[in-house]
């Protein structure tokens, strides 16, 4: 990590890049990573030991679970993506960001939205649609801030000093556009009061629109922007050429075109018309290869850097992130096949699947980027490479415990639900029996989650120590935000 990556660049660095905004987003990423994962750990405990609901209306599972999902998707991942995009597009386009004012409105607006979410969700103010729970005034704020971000993003592209757009930018662009479309269409609602509204869609149509949104929030917030970040930060970290440009082209267009169709796989065997269910299934299957295109371009870019896999935690984080990406993008299409879904649906298998993507792909990529980027923007060395290496192992073990426990729990419960006795009657007619069976897995999941959170805290400590050791001039603005 001591190698200067800019050494072989054709031109000397002449542009005054805005790294202050990148620093802010990094700090927000770490803060909300801790918050989001901590809430996740509390939820895991609540399922294993119900008194952890604390007897307060603000802390029941039903109200905290949306807080967890919103915090890790929009606060942790959102800030992580913004940090990475704002750092990389300036370099890729050889220009400062379009507008410092917009950058700051974007940052503070986004944090205010997160604050509003953190207050409103425990109060039970919700729209009742998964990952789109936030009430309509906050939804409007999200739309406004997203437009601010989009203007800043496209404005930066407009004033770029290079001719062609690198593949990372394509992926960023697909996120900026698609998230805007998804958020606005899915959030269309008629307000009843200042805090309550009803979606304009009814019943199964609402369900379809919601899962078109929900699935593609995964696709275009947890996948494509992070692939974009991978195309920048992974080759930067290992100083190797990207494996295949033509693979980039094909998997990019195939991915964004196919992804959007796959939402109905969340509604297999529901009252959604059969034709729509079939579309959801086959488009999910067709997504395997385009997804694996990203995995291949990541893994094969690591060719020639395998020796660093033993010594450099950043390379380890990337290797595992990309591997988990490949695994969950195989598992997802499998779970979208009708026969498999009939077993996996409604069970913890789904929870395990989501977390192998979220902890394995998104989280590990975030750590890889953070450990590379923090020393860059604070112009110093990472405080402890050893601690980063330890973080890698704690996090990896945490994911494995989590995912394996959820596979076991999901398959156990799915099989118990459908088990019949010799007379053709339900073998486990009492639903509760199928829940109590899961308790050992829930404790293992809790340990997995705690490990991952511990790693996250180690990362924060490492970053704080790194920043403390940074040259004074650059670190001066930071402590106020770090709190």
């Amino acid at each position: 990590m001591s190698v200067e990556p800019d050494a072989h660049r054709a031109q000397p660095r002449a542009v005054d890049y805005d790294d202050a905004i990148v620093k802010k987003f990094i700090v927000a990423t770490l803060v909300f990573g801790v918050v989001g994962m901590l809430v996740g750990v509390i939820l895991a405990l609540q399922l294993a030991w119900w008194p952890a609901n604390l007897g307060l209306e603000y802390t029941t599972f039903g109200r905290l679970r949306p807080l967890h999902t919103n915090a890790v998707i929009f606060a942790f991942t959102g800030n992580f993506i913004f940090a990475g995009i704002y750092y990389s597009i300036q370099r890729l386009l050889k220009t400062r960001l379009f507008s410092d004012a917009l950058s700051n409105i974007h940052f503070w607006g986004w944090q205010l939205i997160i604050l509003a979410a953190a207050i409103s969700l425990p109060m039970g103010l919700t729209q009742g649609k998964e990952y789109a729970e936030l009430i309509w005034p906050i939804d409007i704020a999200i739309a406004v801030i997203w437009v601010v971000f989009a203007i800043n993003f496209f404005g930066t592209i407009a004033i770029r000093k290079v001719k062609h757009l690198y593949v990372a930018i394509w992926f960023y662009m697909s996120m900026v556009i698609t998230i805007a479309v998804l958020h606005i269409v899915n959030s269309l609602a008629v307000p009843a009061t200042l805090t309550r509204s009803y979606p304009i869609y009814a019943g199964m149509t609402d369900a379809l629109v919601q899962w078109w949104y929900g699935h593609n929030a995964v696709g275009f917030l947890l996948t494509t922007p992070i692939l974009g970040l991978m195309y920048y930060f992974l080759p930067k970290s290992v100083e190797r050429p990207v494996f295949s440009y033509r693979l980039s082209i094909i998997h990019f267009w195939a991915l964004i075109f196919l992804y959007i169709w796959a939402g109905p796989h969340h509604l297999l065997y529901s009252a959604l018309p059969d034709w729509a269910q079939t579309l959801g299934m086959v488009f999910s299957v067709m997504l395997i290869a385009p997804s694996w295109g990203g995995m291949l371009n990541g893994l094969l870019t690591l060719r020639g850097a395998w020796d660093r896999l033993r010594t450099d935690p950043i390379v380890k984080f990337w290797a595992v992130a990309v591997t988990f990406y490949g695994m969950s993008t195989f598992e997802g299409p499998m779970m979208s096949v009708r026969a498999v879904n009939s077993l996996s649906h409604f069970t913890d298998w789904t929870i395990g699947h989501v977390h192998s993507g979220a902890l394995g792909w998104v989280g590990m990529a975030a750590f890889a980027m953070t450990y590379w980027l923090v020393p860059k923007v604070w112009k110093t060395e990472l405080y402890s490479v050893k601690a980063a290496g330890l973080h890698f192992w704690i996090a990896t073990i945490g994911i494995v415990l989590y995912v394996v426990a959820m596979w076991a729990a999901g398959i156990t419960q799915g099989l118990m639900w459908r088990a019949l006795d010799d007379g053709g009657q339900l073998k486990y007619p009492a639903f509760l029996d199928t829940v109590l069976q899961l308790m050992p897995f829930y404790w293992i999941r809790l340990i997995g989650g705690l490990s991952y959170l511990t790693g996250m805290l180690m990362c924060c400590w490492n970053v704080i120590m790194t920043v403390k050791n940074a040259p004074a001039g650059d670190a001066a603005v930071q402590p106020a935000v770090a709190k």
Partner: protein
Amino acid sequence: MSNDANPSWHRKALEHRSALFAVLVTVGISIGGLVEIVPMYNIETGPETLEGVEPYTPLELVGRDIYVSEGCYNCHSQWVRPFRSETLRYGPWSRAGEYAYDHPFQLGSRRIGPDLMRVGKKYPDAWHWEHMRDPRSTSPGSIMPPYPWLYEKTWSVEDAQASMRAMQTLGVPYSDADIEGAGESMQRQSQEIVASLAKAGAKAQGDEQVVALIAYLQRLGTDGRAAIEAQEAAQ
């Protein structure tokens, strides 16, 4: 093989035209959504309707708001799949028409607790009254949290009317008279529940939020069950 001297078609045609690139991305990500969502508004291709499914009463509507607000959907589905193992456990599988007045839908995605699609009229009011206050009193070993605040907080007629007006805009067939008479309707329905609770020895006022929630839960899936059974009998 392409190189700088011989750039690919993609590089020549697209990578320097950012606006065109953005337009193509927009087109690319729009097609799937349009093809799937637009036919939902066509009678032939959209969700089937079911005769006999009526809108929620004002009290049930308020109860539904509580259901949404407490995030019940995080643990309970309202979606019986067309498998024998599910219909044995819960009752008739869910038909699209049953959800006709559901804004938002509450199908759920994870069954930490049982499906609630057919819970309506399955248990007496008193069961729900006890269960929401102390889930383990009726379901020993349950991991559901208790909801004592639903017994302290009250529902309001104005809230129900605001909801009904919004629903009216969305095409739910509430007449102005329905909205006008919401208070009376809520009074009547809540007192019926109070009376049935009293017979089981539970003292309720009727304006507790849990009463509205019970009204909603007792309605769940009942229209649909009756309509499905009528349909099957006719065949």
